[in-house]
């Protein structure tokens, strides 16, 4: 198992697409920081304002989630679909003939790279968000106080979103289709479904992948109806799952397609 894992880690490290994805983590996190500061002002008249409420502070600390929700699934998709796109799956299975072992190595590799993306986002938070917040007049310790509430969940959500991408990649095999399905599904379709469910049925559709990930990552709730449960929320506020419910739901979103893909696609004859 260790041999397969070491080979997979090297394989990922030598794929240009992975580095492009990794490189996008920084600008996307900075974009997330900009959004938090821009929305923190509210009606204060300032373009950017320091974070004050609990929810804002958590959102600033979890601004890397903006990159994670896009990039971690892509990492998972690349990890498996590149084998089919580049037709290297035959060689990989000759080297690691036990397929469950190869897939498990890919699960761990995806997790490692997803954590790298989350960590890169945290570097951006430390280097950009905290000094900027202080410059705007905020208190740094009020943000860093929330590290325990946000960062473990953020890292775990990165791992599970990566697994979600790997699962769909295993199931679909086609790289473009898998990326469209995961990213398009979480960023566009999920938003539409949430809005429709809220408008028509007054129901918080909070068990879809992105919502589950946001709940797991410290109730950061960005993009879900303007406020998470951390703010208390009004009557129209979108209620996220609890962090552990979010974790379980996101795990199911990863393991479901992965298991299905393993038994339907990955175990098929390689001709």
């Amino acid at each position, binding site marked *: 198992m260790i*041999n397969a894992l070491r080979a997979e880690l090297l394989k990922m490290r*030598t794929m*240009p697409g992975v580095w492009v994805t990794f490189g996008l983590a920084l600008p996307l996190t900075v974009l997330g920081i900009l959004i938090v500061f821009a929305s923190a002002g509210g009606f204060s008249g300032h373009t950017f304002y320091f974070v004050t409420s609990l929810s804002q502070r958590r959102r600033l600390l979890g601004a890397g989630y903006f990159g994670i929700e896009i990039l971690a699934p892509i990492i998972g998709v690349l990890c498996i679909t590149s084998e089919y796109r580049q037709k290297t799956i*035959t*060689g990989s299975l000759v*080297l690691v*003939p036990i397929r469950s072992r190869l897939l498990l190595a890919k699960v761990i590799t995806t997790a490692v790279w997803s954590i790298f993306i989350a960590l890169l986002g945290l570097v951006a938070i430390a280097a950009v968000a905290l000094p900027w917040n202080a410059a705007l007049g905020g208190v740094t310790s009020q943000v860093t106080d929330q590290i325990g509430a946000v960062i473990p969940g953020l890292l775990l959500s990165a791992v599970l979103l990566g697994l979600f991408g790997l699962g769909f990649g295993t199931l679909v095999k086609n790289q473009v289709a898998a990326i469209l399905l995961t990213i398009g599904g979480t960023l566009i379709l999920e938003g539409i479904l949430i809005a429709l469910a809220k408008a028509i049925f007054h129901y918080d559709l909070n068990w879809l992948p992105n919502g589950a990930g946001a709940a797991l990552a410290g109730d950061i709730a960005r993009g879900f109806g303007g406020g998470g449960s951390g703010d208390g929320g009004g009557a129209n506020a979108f209620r996220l799952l609890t962090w552990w419910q979010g974790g379980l739901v996101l795990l199911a979103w990863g393991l479901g397609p992965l298991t299905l893909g393993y038994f339907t696609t990955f175990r098929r004859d*390689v001709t």
Partner: protein
Amino acid sequence: MTPGTTTRGLPIEINGLSKHFGPVLAVDNLSFTVEPGRVTGFLGPNGSGKTTTLRMLLGLVHPSSGTATIAGQSYQNLPNPTSSVGAVLEATSFHPARRARTHLRMAARAGGHDEKRADEVLGLVGLSGDAKRKIGGFSMGMRQRLELATALIGDPDVLILDEPSNGLDPQGIAWLRDFMRYFASEGRTVLVSSHLLSEMAQTIDDAVIVSFGQLKAQGTLEEITKGITGIVMRARSPEADRLAGVLAQAGIAFRRITHDEIAMDGVTPEQVGPLLASNQIVLYELAQEGGDLESVFLSLTAGLGFGDLADAAPTPPTPPTPPDQTP
């Protein structure tokens, strides 16, 4: 490695192997064995089930029935598969952005081998100078060599090659032939599939001939070519009448072709030559016709794959070191 100093090959056993792809029966109750220390040719026309059989042997394709084992175990169950078996398969590819050495380091890691093996096998296949080049820029022949290097990363006991000559230039083909012979001379097992019969005839010790997924013949090259009907010895002599008398006296069936030419059925040069010499018969020509691998193959496969023979490349003598590879 010194030829003949080790006997480390493993036998391959194919037993009642069948594979259906939907309604198509690609491999039909195939059984044969491959012995260590010999180069065994796995011959058959395109679409005769060779690749499917090799892929079943390597666990890439699930058999509908039967078994394909190496030393009694399936490939997946071998304690260290890449130390036991190296495989060069058709339609295998590489990530174009990866460098040759990195690809081999990855293979070494996957098999639990020392990453230094990457440089050793690159040298073995003559790609040392291209170690840091991206594989996307490799020629077909270089990719084939890299594939062979990957197969050798674990210094395996068994080498399985599926159409390995594809993309190789004549020098490369000659080098590959020498390599297979060398590998087998160490007691290791070589199973090579090909439709290039002229090339195979120079390389293999044993042959397994398949057609429509079924076994048509198996044995040593000599046994197979000897067993075929239609082998004819043709002799041309100014003493054709006396030659006919000697043959009749020896009980050899013959036909008079022209005034100075006689055809003999079911005999070999080793049988006829001494007989004619002892009777001091002058010969202008003594030739065997129709007893070569190609004739056997065409006879057993009903002529299928004949067109492939046009692809057979001549193989002039080459030095033992791998030729320089530049795309």
